[in-house]
């Protein structure tokens, strides 16, 4: 039991995130449609798209190399592994010790690295455009993420997500300004990393405003399916991350029974749903920014992350 349960939890989570991710995307789209008084496609539409794409023939540009064809699988795998390591409904994942928060973020960086390379592989203007902008956003988002990590680690004394979640769920933390700042910063980073409004518009194919879509413009068929799936997974991952760190209640702890795990799962689904609603509301309420306004936006996250960290020192001194 001591060994099997974490293994089971781990397996369940891996399956769960893959299944859930396209549904989350579908849910957000649906909610946004409803908010703009459209009926919208069903929640399962992303899944249908993916399955459809998987069946199709892949059209690859003449100038594309092997990297172009391998990248979608690598991107998917890296994102999946990262998502599998963020506690969703239980903290005691079998392999949670494989990576801490920094490594998870870096793994997403690896995925982005391959995505950007794939965007440049065909040798078109759009791919490069998307890649260069994506890397610029990441350049600012990553330090912000590290400072958020720093603030969290300062409170929890650890960068292991399970430990952080356990500490945050405990009574010792309380309400802190720093945490609020970290939360806001994390949300900003999440918006940027997932190419959501106001940083990027996942629904656009308007040439000059594309970032993520520009990179994957040449992809088709199963390759596109893998990339879409990876993008959905990434969104889910960030929501799970926010949920796990800032609302860690309901997470099943090691040694608890099946009921606790089921409760955890329900709580998790609830949290994700709330997150989806919040995201849809936010995206509907706000307009997309110009590309060169985004650095200022991300700069806010950077400042908040730094302030959050420094304030912790101040409060610790007081």
């Amino acid at each position, binding site marked *: 039991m001591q060994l099997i349960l974490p293994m089971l939890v781990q397996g369940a989570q891996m399956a769960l995130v893959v299944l859930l991710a396209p549904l989350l995307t579908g849910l957000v789209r649906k909610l946004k449609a409803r908010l703009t008084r459209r009926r919208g496609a069903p929640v399962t539409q992303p899944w249908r798209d993916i399955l459809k794409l998987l069946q199709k023939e892949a059209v*690859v*540009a003449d100038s594309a190399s092997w990297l172009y064809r391998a990248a979608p699988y690598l991107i998917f*795998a890296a994102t999946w592994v990262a998502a599998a390591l963020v506690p969703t409904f239980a903290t005691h994942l079998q*392999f949670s010790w494989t*990576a801490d928060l920094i490594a998870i973020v870096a793994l997403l960086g*690896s995925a982005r690295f391959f995505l950007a390379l794939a965007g440049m592989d065909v040798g078109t203007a759009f791919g490069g455009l998307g890649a*260069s902008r994506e890397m610029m956003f990441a350049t600012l988002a*990553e330090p912000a993420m590290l400072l958020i990590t720093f603030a969290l680690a300062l409170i929890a004394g650890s960068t292991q997500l399970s430990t952080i979640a356990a500490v945050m769920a405990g009574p010792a933390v309380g309400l802190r300004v720093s945490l609020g700042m970290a939360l806001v910063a994390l949300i900003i980073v999440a918006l940027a990393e997932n190419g959501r409004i106001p940083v990027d518009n996942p629904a656009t194919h308007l040439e000059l405003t594309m970032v993520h879509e520009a990179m994957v413009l040449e992809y088709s068929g199963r390759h596109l399916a893998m990339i879409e799936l990876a993008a959905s997974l990434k969104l889910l991952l960030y929501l799970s991350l926010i949920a796990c760190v800032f609302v860690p209640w309901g997470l099943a702890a090691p040694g608890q029974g099946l009921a606790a795990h089921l409760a955890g799962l329900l709580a998790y689904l609830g949290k994700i749903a709330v997150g989806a609603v919040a995201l849809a509301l936010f995206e509907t309420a706000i307009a997309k920014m110009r590309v060169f306004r985004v650095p200022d936006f991300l700069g806010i996250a950077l400042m908040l992350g730094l302030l959050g960290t420094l304030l912790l*020192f101040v409060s610790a001194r007081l």
Partner: protein
Amino acid sequence: MLEAATLLAGALIALGPIALLFGGRAQTALYALTALLAAGLAGLALAALATAATARLTLPIGLPWLGAHLRLDPLSAFFALLLGLGGCAASLSAIGYFRHSPEPRRTLPFLPAFLGAMLAVILADDAFSFLMSWEIMSLLSWALVLADHRAEAARRAGFVYLTMAAFGTLALLLAFGLLAGPQGAYTFDAIRATPRGPLSVALVLALMLLGAGSKAGLAPLHVWLPMAHPAAPSPVSALMSGVMTKVALYAFLRVVFDLLGPTPWWTAAALIPLGAGTAVLGILLATVETDIKRLLACSTIENIGVIFAALGLALAFRADAMPAAAALALSAALFHAFNHMAMKSLLFLGAGATVGATGTRALDRLGGLIHRMPVTAALMLVGALAIAALPPLNGFASEWLVFQAVLLSPALPQASLQLLVPAAGGLLALAAALAAAAFVRLYGVAFLGRPRSPEAAAAREADRPTLVAMSLLAALCIAAGLLPGLFLDTLAPVARQLLQARLPAQAAQPWLTLTPVAAARSTYNGLLFALFIALSAGLAAVAVHRLASRALRRAPAWDCGFPQDLPNSQYGAGSFAQPLRRVLGTTLLSARETVAMPPPGDLSPARHTVQASDPAWAALYAPLAGAVEAASRKANRFQFLTIRRYLSLVFALLVLLLLGLALWS
């Protein structure tokens, strides 16, 4: 073992004159012999690290009444290992690289001797032998930089390089003067035994930062590095960036961590921002650089910055009696130094292969090389991933350790350090993210896309020895990324020697998980990471191919329906850098874009020019050069005086001295 290492150093140095005599005839044999000796050195160093013993030897050369003191301890053994591995790969690659060199005498004698001189620096145990080897090392690398002496840029680079090297040596000379005292106690043992006050510590530290820092490429003394490293032939660039900067690091470690004795905490406050700033500046320069080898050299500056920041942390922890944390920071720095040796050598060799195949260093004339040079491209991908600090490769493993050390800083008692370190951590993260951008750019522009010039379209795969050397280095990168614990255990004796502390034994951890402090705090397992990714990617691919479609059709690129045939319509090096140049470069690099648009009706092409410059040039070097120029122009008037005026000078001095005498008595 020290005797063997000394013999190796002697043999390598002796190979220089031998090569000079034999000329180009035995080129392959000589480079192969060099590679063999270097490999032997690596083995020897590994054995010495394993035993962690300290050996001493005195040779009757060098300073007359002192002799040359040599010593092999874990610290020097670790750097000898770096040197052996880097030297072996570079010499291997040299076999192929120089095979068709028109003037073999311009590199052949210097390369082995350069390795030997670096080894001598590492083995030296007194100030004189140390500085002598140090300067010989600079001199030989200078000769190598000038191998392509017909290029004006190389001559200029050589001049700036050796002048900076002389500056550094003078700083070291002063530092050792202070350490040795007026009686001239030049042996390291004597220096170690002398207690010193805070002023002296501060001076030595400042001088070491100038001396070793200028060699390593610490800002603002880094300007020579992007000039000199690329100007040399690529195997030499690999050695200079991969190994020689580490020798500079060794000098810093030896003096500040070993000879200087306890250092106050504020030494760290000086070092950490310097390192973090260097990292950001270096990589920012790399993101706008359009010359493939210069880009790599700028990235060297970044990594040196990271290492120095980690060393600063180690100093802080040591000063505050936190040996375990200090050992973590030091191990992170050393591990990163090792990783950088492997990945930067790999990248430089690959860049050399690229330049050799296309005849150009301009990124904007490359493109699509992944089709023409598949092996080089694959190996370069490993290097690019590694240096961009991405898991599961080795660059990430060491940067992760650095961040772990950063995360331990809240325990430091000094408020200024508490505030400084998180900010520095943010800068390091910025540098890592920028590195990813820089290497996506390098790899994407040079190896992916379509060829931008006929040379790139006709490129051929690199020569076999270079590919072998690159494969070795790539294997090192992968091994250090997947099994960082084993590497960290290997360098534990160094931390124990310098700090009397070490990391927890990594080999004992379950699954060889990297556990710098405690399992509950932070762990990372590169092996499992890689395994998971490989498994899930493989699984996904197999599943998709089996269960869904495997049909594939080649077609022209879609490109939103308006495909452009011209290869220049691709994103190039300049365009890729544009967002970052605008966001960060405008202020930091005073980047400017100007568009000269012809008036309506005029058929001449519009011009878009981009300028970006290293702020250190404008702030420091240009005024200095101007001052020397002005002073020499003023002084030069004394060459054109009449005899009467010269006599007036004599007369004036006489009267002055007599006046002084009258007033003095």
